[in-house]
């Protein structure tokens, strides 16, 4: 099929997510790769929001700024989003507010049809989904199967009302399209997994042995603790803390007593946690922190996306101590990064920060596979019986002390936020102990660096232009590289998941490097320069709150 971009637009509370999700799943059920992303305002009702679907034979897991079909459930949404409609694109509306525009429009009175065929206005979503399927050639029974599956638990009557409403919307749209109606899409044998990065974090964390999460609700991170709450079989203790400071300290307490523990927040909440990130560094307590980025400063744009907190996460916390920062780019990478985050945290007894963002939290990727890394989780704890005497901060060549946890054995564990002796007690021995403890902590960072993984190259070995990305911009970069290559450009990419410490890098002096980032100041470019001395040609930056897309990158080279 020709790749399609569909927008479902409306106000918060109008169910556009339900419509979009049903249509995306109908495509997936029919064997097509669907990707969806949501953009919405920070409010419960009203405003403008859209649920965007990209469909193709192969996954295009990246946002698209323009639409082939716009389904607007209210006139305000229509007015706001119609400029995104491609030439020759199709508009589907409820019938109010359409003008004499040259673009073709289909008028489907969603609510009236819902009342007539489903018996209540609530079925307007099914009517809209039906109309959208007609407009893209997706067979009605496929959508009806998806709706039946989604509403099965609510009873036969509701399933039936949804099916009838979907049919009504489908029929009205089809009759208005007439000869313009697309030919039906054939079913394909392909099957995809449809997941968001935040959906998989709790599962990957459980695979890593996580048993404790404390968090304070903050968009776009809240889904993570919610998933643990909804799934008691995972056996993870969860607590909504009174603030982010409590959240991270609860997690640190649990971790010190042996539980693999995590917290999740966004920039503002992470700001509150900063002192405790330093505490984890000093006390050498493993912890995983998900930092789901959104645009700042301060409250910023609570429901939008950004990559503005890279250097903040890197520098958060007073004093000098090692940490790791991992920025996965899709759900599969998120599974792997989450498991690794817990492993690195335990192995080096450090805080590990997983950098995601609203785009990763709220976008659903079409994946050919989604799998856990092999093997059981390693805890890197010491064996109590092997010790005569125990010192929590024993000086070793690697800087890593054998770790026993509070209450693990009869050995006493003394953890201290002050500078401490090997036994964990307060010291002001400035000649011997303080320098040794500083070197111990930093030696862990040097070893950690050796455990960091190289960026993934795509033609970066010989291309004249190399795009450097990190985290969630991967899909947009891949798509832009393909488009620019089609135009004859010699271009490749290098994509980082491990953003701190950077692994040893060899950047070619004969290539032109650009970073692609969701921030205005080129934070990764600065990091690269400070670590490697290499100055990139420039940064392709996006900082309006929307995710990076291929169009933005391609435009930079036009």
């Amino acid at each position, binding site marked *: 099929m020709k790749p399609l971009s569909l927008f479902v637009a409306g106000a918060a509370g109008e169910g556009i997510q339900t419509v979009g999700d049903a249509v995306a*799943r109908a495509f*997936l*059920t029919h064997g097509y790769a669907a990707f969806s992303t949501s953009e919405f305002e920070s409010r419960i009702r009203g405003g403008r929001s859209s649920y965007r679907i990209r469909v193709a034979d192969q996954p295009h897991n990246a946002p698209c700024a323009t639409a082939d079909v716009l389904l607007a459930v209210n006139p305000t949404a229509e007015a706001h989003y119609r400029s995104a409609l491609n030439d020759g694109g199709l508009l589907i509306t409820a019938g109010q507010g359409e003008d004499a525009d040259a673009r073709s429009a289909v008028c489907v009175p969603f609510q009236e049809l819902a009342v007539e065929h489903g018996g209540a206005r609530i079925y307007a979503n099914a009517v809209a989904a039906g109309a959208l399927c007609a407009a893209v050639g997706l067979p009605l029974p496929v959508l009806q*199967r998806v709706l039946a*599956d989604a509403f099965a638990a609510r009873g036969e009557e509701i399933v039936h009302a949804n099916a009838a409403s979907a049919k009504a919307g489908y029929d009205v749209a089809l009759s208005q399209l007439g000869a313009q109606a697309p030919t039906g899409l054939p079913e394909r044998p392909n*099957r*995809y997994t*449809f997941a968001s990065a935040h959906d*998989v974090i709790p*599962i990957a964390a*459980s*695979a890593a*042995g996580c*048993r*404790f999460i*404390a968090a304070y609700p903050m968009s776009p991170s809240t889904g993570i603790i919610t998933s643990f709450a909804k799934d008691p079989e*995972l*056996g993870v*203790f969860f*607590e909504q*803390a*009174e*603030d982010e*400071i*409590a*959240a991270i*300290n*609860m997690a*640190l*307490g*649990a*971790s*010190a*007593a*042996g*539980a693999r*523990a995590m917290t999740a927040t966004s920039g503002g909440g992470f700001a509150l946690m900063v*002192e*405790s990130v330093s*505490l984890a560094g000093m006390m050498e307590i493993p912890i995983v922190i998900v930092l789901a980025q959104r645009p700042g400063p301060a409250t910023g744009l609570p429901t939008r996306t950004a990559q503005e907190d890279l250097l903040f996460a890197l520098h958060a916390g007073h004093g000098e101590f090692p940490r790791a920062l991992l920025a996965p780019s899709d759900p599969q990478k998120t599974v792997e990064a989450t498991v690794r985050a817990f492993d690195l945290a335990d192995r080096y007894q450090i805080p590990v920060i997983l950098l995601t963002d609203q785009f990763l939290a709220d976008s659903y990727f079409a994946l050919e596979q*989604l*799998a*856990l890394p092999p093997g059981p*989780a390693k*805890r890197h*704890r010491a064996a109590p019986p092997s010790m005569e005497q125990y010192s929590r901060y024993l000086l070793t060549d690697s800087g890593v002390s054998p770790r026993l*946890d*509070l*209450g*693990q*054995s009869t*050995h*006493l*564990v*003394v*953890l*201290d936020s002050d500078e401490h002796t090997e036994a*964990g*007690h*307060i010291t002001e021995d400035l000649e011997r102990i303080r320098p040794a403890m500083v070197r111990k902590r930093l030696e862990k960072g040097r070893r950690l660096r050796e455990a960091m993984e190289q960026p993934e190259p795509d033609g970066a070995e010989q291309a004249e232009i190399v795009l450097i990305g990190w985290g969630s911009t991967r899909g947009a970069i891949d798509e832009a590289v393909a488009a620019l290559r089609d135009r004859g450009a010699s271009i490749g990419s290098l994509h980082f998941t491990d953003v701190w410490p950077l692994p040893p890098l060899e950047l070619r002096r004969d290539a032109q490097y650009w970073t692609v980032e969701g921030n205005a100041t080129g934070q990764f470019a600065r990091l690269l320069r400070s670590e490697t001395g290499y100055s990139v040609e420039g940064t392709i930056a996006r900082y309006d709150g929307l995710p990076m897309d291929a169009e933005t990158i391609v435009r930079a080279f036009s």
Partner: protein
Amino acid sequence: MTRIEDYRHDVENQWCPGCPNFGVLTALQRALVALRLAPHEICLVSGIGQAAKLPHYLRANVFNGLHGRAIPAAIGIQIAHPSLKTIVTSGDGDLYGEGGNHFLHALRRNPDITLVVHNNQLYALTKGQASPTTPRGEPTRLQIRGVEVDPAQMLATAIVHGCGFVARGFAGEIDELESLLQRAIAYRGLSLVEVIQPCITWGHHPIDWYRQRLEPIKNDHDPTDRARAVDLALRAPDKLVVGVLYEIPSRTTFGSSFRNRIGEMPLAELPDIERAILEERLARMAVNL
């Protein structure tokens, strides 16, 4: 058999000579011996301040974390390891001031931990500024013309929020304090012992001045009488009512619904979750109707 020597350390003590904190330390060591608890069965948690150094002077597991953050850390420890007796020992500035929000919410949660608040009515380690409990009008090294706000009434707050065991002791009466600490540590649920611990360096009054203002709770006090308990608590700072102000039968403790499902073992000792359970969740994300 645990002996008092088991709880003693050779770690250098940084308190001022003669500090009533030594009385709290002795009372706590004796209470732990009396309860037949061994050092490895105890975890002491503190924040920052002179009182918060106590865990270094008593042989046990220790989490000496950040200023104000002892309570959430203690809650995490207790949830992760329920059989570890978790005791917070820190100052009034730490637990009532910097950590006041955590104190308030700990009352709502009712975790099975004990809070020992060393109340010297000022910030000692930072050299004599007002704390949340400094009486109005009292001059300090910072509030030179006297404190212009009212003291926090945290014992009354605790009682109002249903903290099941609320007591006040005096660092100068070690036997009485030991008995209060024993009862608090043995109590299942959140227990609070505030210890009047005069600061001999920055405080305005000698220890005897406090002793004269002590008002031992009379034998006829019904410790389940919440209104009366609040009334007794609110006599501070003029009269320092000492003894058990409030004690009610243990109620549901924090984390019990989780523990009822999962058992009492430390979270670290739970077996790995079966891979098939997790794989099934990933498989559920496949769209395959």
